[in-house]
């Protein structure tokens, strides 16, 4: 069951736009995720987090915007949070987004679903546990991540409702 929550204040949060990423202790937010997915990694022992606004599952070798693709975002964020692969199991992941906003368009493309699948595959390869997710469906989501407050993640929807994962 999800308990209704007050959305945290976003003024001081780093705004992570499409294809961007951030590593640190500061609050981070991505507005209006549709088929994009917020990849959120958290190291509880150090209270450090990382987040990327992933738009597509595969970079096809492109390097210019690592946060934009599932594969490059993982390659960048995991080592930034955990320089030693043995430390990976202390990192936890949360995923949000990956919706399909239009029934008519892109149904066969299913970009949202493919983004989520790709991220789950890479997380499993790196032995990083997914502790919470709010993915799929037909809804937009605004995500706010608070590393300094135990890695809490708040999700707001267009109807104004807010819950924590």
């Amino acid at each position: 069951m999800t308990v209704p929550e007050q959305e945290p204040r976003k003024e001081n949060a780093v705004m992570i736009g499409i294809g961007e990423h951030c590593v640190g202790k500061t609050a981070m937010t991505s507005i209006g995720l549709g088929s994009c997915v917020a990849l959120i990694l958290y190291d509880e022992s150090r209270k450090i987090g990382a987040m990327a606004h992933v738009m597509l599952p595969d970079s096809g070798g492109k390097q210019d915007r690592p946060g934009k693709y599932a594969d490059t975002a993982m390659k960048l964020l995991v080592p930034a949070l955990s320089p030693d692969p043995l430390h990976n199991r202390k990192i936890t992941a949360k995923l949000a987004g990956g919706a399909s906003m239009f029934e008519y368009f892109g149904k066969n493309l299913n970009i949202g679903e493919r983004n989520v699948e790709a991220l789950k595959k890479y997380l499993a390869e790196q032995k990083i546990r997914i502790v919470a997710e709010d993915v799929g469906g037909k809804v937009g989501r605004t995500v706010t991540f608070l590393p300094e407050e135990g890695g809490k993640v708040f999700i707001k929807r267009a109807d104004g409702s807010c819950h924590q994962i």
Partner: protein
Amino acid sequence: MKLTPIQKDAMQELANIGAAHAATTLSQMLNSQVDMSVPVVNVVDISRVSDCLGEEFAAMVVFELQGEISHGGYVVFHVSKESALRMTNTMLGMTDMDRPLNEMDQSALLEVGNIMVSAFLDATAELLGIVMLPSPPALSMDMAHAAFESLIAQLTIEVNEVLLFKTELTCEEHKVAGNLIMLPEAETLEKIIALLEGLMAPTS
């Protein structure tokens, strides 16, 4: 992506002609005067799209550009929830503003969008001398950014910048406002610019 001032002017003029035709159809449907803003043509980095379309709830009627240019990009008619309600209320002679958007509003929005976007594309295509047709419409009633980023993600040619045409149409009498937004594929944009430059070339 960089447009020269002349290309930008030409694109603006094209949007202006299209939007004027769309405004006329909206004016007929609302039976009231509709004003339009000067179209804004902007190259926007994808990471900053949230500055133009945020997390607020909006109704967006989306069309894919078809015709001579297949998969040409998207045209969007974007209205706030309040404007959507006022628009349906005006057309159906109702006054209740304190209600959720229902199926009737949805079909009204699809129809209004269809008529306006067809007028927009007819006028621009005629100027360019090509055929541009809208696909059947799709509707999203959710966060504006969520719908729009999904369109960017499914562009055939992947981009880091998008060119946005935006014109605001307002009906003072009924307090209705909406935006027409065009998101062309990179190839479509090149083709349109080439056609416009052809039109502007001296015909001696």
